[in-house]
């Protein structure tokens, strides 16, 4: 029992269940399909970000630049498609977005894998470089007319319905993109040698090197892949919001990392699960959208998230330390 409780996934799941029980006690309408679709809709972009952030954490690094990559990508993609390729279908727009993101991720990869710089400092730097570059040289005004491909994608719904009281609810088609991202990442991590190598360098760089893993190559893959995911997330975000606002997204990176860490991924590297990450995102999205339902005013939102981070990471850390102290 104690060991089960030490796992972040279980803790987070229990908190989510408790939250939902409290919420439905104070407002019976909380437990309904519209609430679920609303929450799923708010978690589409965040989940893609979180999967990328988790991969970086597993490899022993940290990336805070992904929101800037996403903002840069959605802005540039919308602009280029509008100007040069308005005929591009929606899947083409998503592919181009991922490619632009991968290109920016390659910048991080060169600095981290090539020069061996600390990941936090590099990505803090590239965060302001990408954002500063976009706002200075590309543009700082919203693009309100998106290219046809992105507009088409923005209207795609996979589920529609009407409530008893006549209001509509719907689930956006982008949800399937998120599912695909989770499945592909799961396959990479669990079914390929590359995935094993990512866990290995997160555990210990030196040991990984000695068993013949190409550490730089793996690191380069991680940052490029995460860049591609961020680019994809940015394009999805702009399509769903039906506007490419260059000031969007940046600033949310810490809550994404908070979600991943709540889900049990270790900052020191070598450990992290997709289940945990998805639960962490679910909890953060719940807190961001429905705190008011359980009677906590919205002004207390960041206190709640902060407390959750400290409890969610402090409890396992404290237990580990007690365990280590008891061992001979």
């Amino acid at each position, binding site marked *: 029992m104690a060991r089960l409780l030490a796992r972040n996934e279980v803790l987070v799941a229990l908190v989510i269940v408790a939250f939902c029980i409290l919420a439905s006690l104070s407002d019976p309408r909380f437990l309904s399909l519209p609430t679920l679709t609303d929450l799923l809709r708010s978690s589409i972009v965040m989940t893609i970000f979180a999967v990328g952030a988790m991969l970086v954490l597993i490899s022993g690094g940290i990336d805070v630049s992904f929101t800037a990559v996403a903002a840069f990508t959605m802005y540039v993609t919308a602009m280029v498609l509008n100007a040069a390729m308005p005929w591009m279908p929606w899947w083409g727009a998503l592919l181009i977005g991922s490619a632009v993101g991968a290109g920016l991720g390659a910048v991080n990869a060169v600095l981290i894998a090539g020069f061996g710089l600390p990941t936090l400092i590099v990505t803090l730097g590239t965060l*302001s470089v990408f*954002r500063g570059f976009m706002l200075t040289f590309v543009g700082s005004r919203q693009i309100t007319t998106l290219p046809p491909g992105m507009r088409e994608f923005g209207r795609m719904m996979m589920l529609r319905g009407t409530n008893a009281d006549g209001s509509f609810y719907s689930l956006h088609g982008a949800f399937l993109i998120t599912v695909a991202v989770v499945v592909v990442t799961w396959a990479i991590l669990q079914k390929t040698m590359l995935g094993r190598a990512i866990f290995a360098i997160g555990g210990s760089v030196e040991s990984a090197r000695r068993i013949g893993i190409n550490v730089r190559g793996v690191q380069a893959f991680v940052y490029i892949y995460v860049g591609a995911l961020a680019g994809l997330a940015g394009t999805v975000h702009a399509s769903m919001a039906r506007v490419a606002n260059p000031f969007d997204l940046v600033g949310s990176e*810490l809550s994404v990392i908070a979600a991943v860490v709540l889900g049990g991924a270790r900052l020191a590297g070598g450990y992290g699960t997709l289940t945990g990450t998805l639960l962490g995102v679910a909890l953060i999205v719940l807190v961001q959208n429905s705190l008011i339902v359980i009677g906590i005013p919205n002004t207390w939102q960041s206190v709640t998230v*902060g407390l959750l981070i400290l409890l969610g990471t402090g409890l396992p850390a404290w237990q580990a330390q007690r365990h280590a102290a008891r061992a001979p």
Partner: protein
Amino acid sequence: MRMPGFLSSPEGRLAVIAVLVFAAMAALSPDLFLSVQNVTSMAFQFPEFAILALAMTVTMLTGGIDLSVVGVANFTSVSAALILTRFAGAGALGADAALWMLLAVGASLGLGLLAGLLNGVLVSVLGLPAILATLGSGLIFTGLAVALTGGSAVMGLPVAVAWIGNGTVAGIPVPLILFVGLAAALALLLRRTGFGLRVQMFGTNPLAARFAAIDVNGLLLRVYALSGVLAAIAGLVVMSRANSAKADYGSSYLLLAVLIAVLGGVNPYGGYGKIVGVVLAVLTMQFLSSGLNMLSVSNFARELIWGVLLIFVMILNTRTRVRTRPKPEARVP
């Protein structure tokens, strides 16, 4: 590549960069940049983020980081401002105002100390990674500031408060005096005391420090407490200069504080860093900032230049550090 002695230390290189930036800005707009007005306005501007950078430096020396500095600064200044507006009011004068100001300053420094101690407990006793602990606590402090004020600015401070941020003593700006005093005290603390030596030892090799019978937990507690108090002082300067306090003031200062510490040659893996370097980095950033402002370069371009500078200096510093101190396993995310 071998460099002459002066250029082989990060501080030496930075001194050259600072002089070059100053010369470039002076050459590009001599009338504006070298004017008395500009020099005094620079002296009023930089202390607030420079003090935050000092707070960041102390924690980085131990191989940690304090991402909660801006949260602590805002939380403590909002508390001080609430005390001042509730009890003293804008019209307070003389002894009455002085008494309440003393109390408000005391309260803010005390809260800064408590906030820092909380970080210290999380990092040392609970063994949380510094990034996580201070990320979480930073959210809590910012959140408390939001909850205390409902998100709006606290205004209507006594006139005397403005003195901390805008006053002068013998022609020298008060914030500058404050910063020079703190930097000198910190330099002495780190160079000339056992505490400073232990901080460097712990930063270089935490395990060796533990085996050398250093009270590691006590050391970390004191380091983060110091960082919290410094952040509270920075918060007071910001409050006085803005003549108000708000939960989201200076949110861009967090990146800037990390940038300045790293630019100043502080090793983010811990163990190496000099206050001289941090002061030089502060001056470089302020020259760059004011100069670009005069050339009417946009704020966004400034952000771009900061980022490029940060990465450039990191490359320069690690290239030279790799040869002197190989640490293959060291990995601070």
